[in-house]
């Protein structure tokens, strides 16, 4: 029976765009389970720790001599922001996979990157300001709120990934059905799979921005404790700006890469086939977003120090 199944399953029947989808998806899954991933996580953890210590020391110096160290706190925050964006992180991964699979104009790509970073800074400021300055909450409670905010963001990502995946599957199914009547559809204007959708872009930005950046929380919390909260806010904004600029560059790079890939694919295929390629890339991108959101929900926690 097995042999008859194998005989029935002809490799030639698998069309090239399905191969593309399979290769992309198995690549993601392999990366997620690989040593490379855990090495990456290790690297981020240690570098973040070094930066956190540096920021912490800087905030303490600002408390002693605000006029001397105020500016350098902002400078270090800005650099931290850039590093934070260049290093691997969930926000970038989402932006890159979203833009690569849902091509946008250069302006919208930058807008997405910029608003996501600034949302992140604003979430941190809003959270710490309202909880610590107005409501006099304890920092343990700020941590719980930050974690809940992040969880909402991940939920949004999961929903978004699911929505895009479902839509691309439906569209793929439609293109499969219309396969025989290719001649007529080639002239139609539906080659561009993704229409401009500002509300979807905003949703992506909010989903990313709901997770406040740890560095921002750190300088906000320490500066509020040391009575120099305004410097904490300025530092956080500088950090957001750094992240925004660096993420913009990444977003543009991913946009160019997609364009190049699309052009290459057009050289070897007709419009119908090209549409299938883009849909498959879109599906793979959304699967990646789902995987990422799931991993983030899985590891989202509020561990506490058992001693206090």
């Amino acid at each position: 029976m097995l042999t008859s199944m194998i005989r029935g399953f002809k490799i030639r029947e698998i069309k090239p765009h399905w191969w593309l989808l399979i290769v992309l998806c198995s690549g993601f899954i392999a990366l997620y389970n690989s040593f490379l991933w855990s090495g990456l996580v290790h690297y981020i953890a240690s570098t973040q720790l070094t930066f956190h210590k540096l920021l912490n020391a800087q905030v303490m110096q600002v408390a002693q001599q605000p006029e001397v160290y105020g500016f350098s706190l902002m400078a270090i925050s800005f650099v931290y922001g850039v590093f934070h964006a260049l290093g691997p992180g969930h926000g970038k991964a989402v932006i890159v996979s979203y833009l690569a699979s849902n091509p946008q104009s250069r302006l919208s790509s930058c807008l997405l990157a910029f608003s996501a970073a600034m949302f992140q800074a604003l979430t941190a400021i809003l959270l710490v300001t309202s909880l610590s300055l107005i409501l006099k909450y304890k920092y343990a409670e700020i941590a719980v709120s930050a974690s809940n905010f992040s969880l909402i963001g991940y939920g949004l990502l999961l929903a978004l990934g699911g929505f895009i995946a479902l839509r691309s599957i439906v569209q793929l199914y439609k293109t499969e059905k219309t396969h025989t009547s290719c001649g007529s559809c080639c002239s139609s204007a539906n080659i561009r799979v993704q229409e401009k959708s500002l509300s979807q872009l905003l949703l992506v930005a909010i989903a990313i921005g709901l997770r406040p950046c740890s560095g921002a929380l750190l300088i906000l919390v320490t500066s509020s404790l040391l009575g120099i909260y305004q410097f904490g806010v300025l530092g956080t904004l500088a950090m957001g700006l750094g992240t925004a600029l660096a993420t913009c560059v990444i977003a543009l790079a991913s946009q160019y890469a997609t364009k190049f890939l699309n052009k290459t694919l057009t050289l070897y295929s007709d419009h119908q086939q090209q549409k299938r390629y883009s849909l498959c890339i879109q599906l793979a991108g959304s699967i990646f977003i789902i995987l990422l959101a799931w991993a983030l929900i899985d590891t989202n926690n509020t561990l506490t120090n058992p001693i206090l």
Partner: protein
Amino acid sequence: MGIACLLCSNAALAHPHNWIDLRTQINIDERGYLTGFSQHWSFDQFFSMISYAELMNEYNDEPIGLASTALKMVANVAPDSYLSELKVAAEVIPLPVPKRYTLESVAVNGSPILVLKMNFILKEPKLVTGKSITLQTFEPSYFVAMNYPSQEHVRVVSNTLHCTAQLIRANPSEELIDYATSLDRNVKETQGLGDDFAERVTIQC
């Protein structure tokens, strides 16, 4: 503790999140009985700063705030046998409630460092001549790393016996270090991890 969570809930931050420097003095009386030990826990700068600010916020009075925080800390670690395991030969000695415990704030480079001092006096002193004493102090989930900065941080006080204390560093495998530092999971998965990173003090009289 709040701030550590702030960090771990965001970056893929690794265990441990807080650090404690240990100092231990083990007391042996003139008859050769182990009577107890005292321990100082010096919390790291960041933890100390946040906790100090929080207790000042809550109590508005340093002595009262420190005393209340000390009570909370001791109550939190009591179910875990004060995070210490004391053995004479192979016998585990149960730890009593510390006879005296205080939380002190020491200024280091302009920022407060909190030091929890506990003094344990055994209900039944144990004869230790010719036996080895081992003491391990660790936080089971490895959220907090507890280490002796140097051999000098372990002392044995005995008027009559000649005792030697030895500090044995933990020797966790590469794999385990990688696991701990890439850890960002739930509490269950980390339980028991602290054991593998625990330093051991052995005393021979």
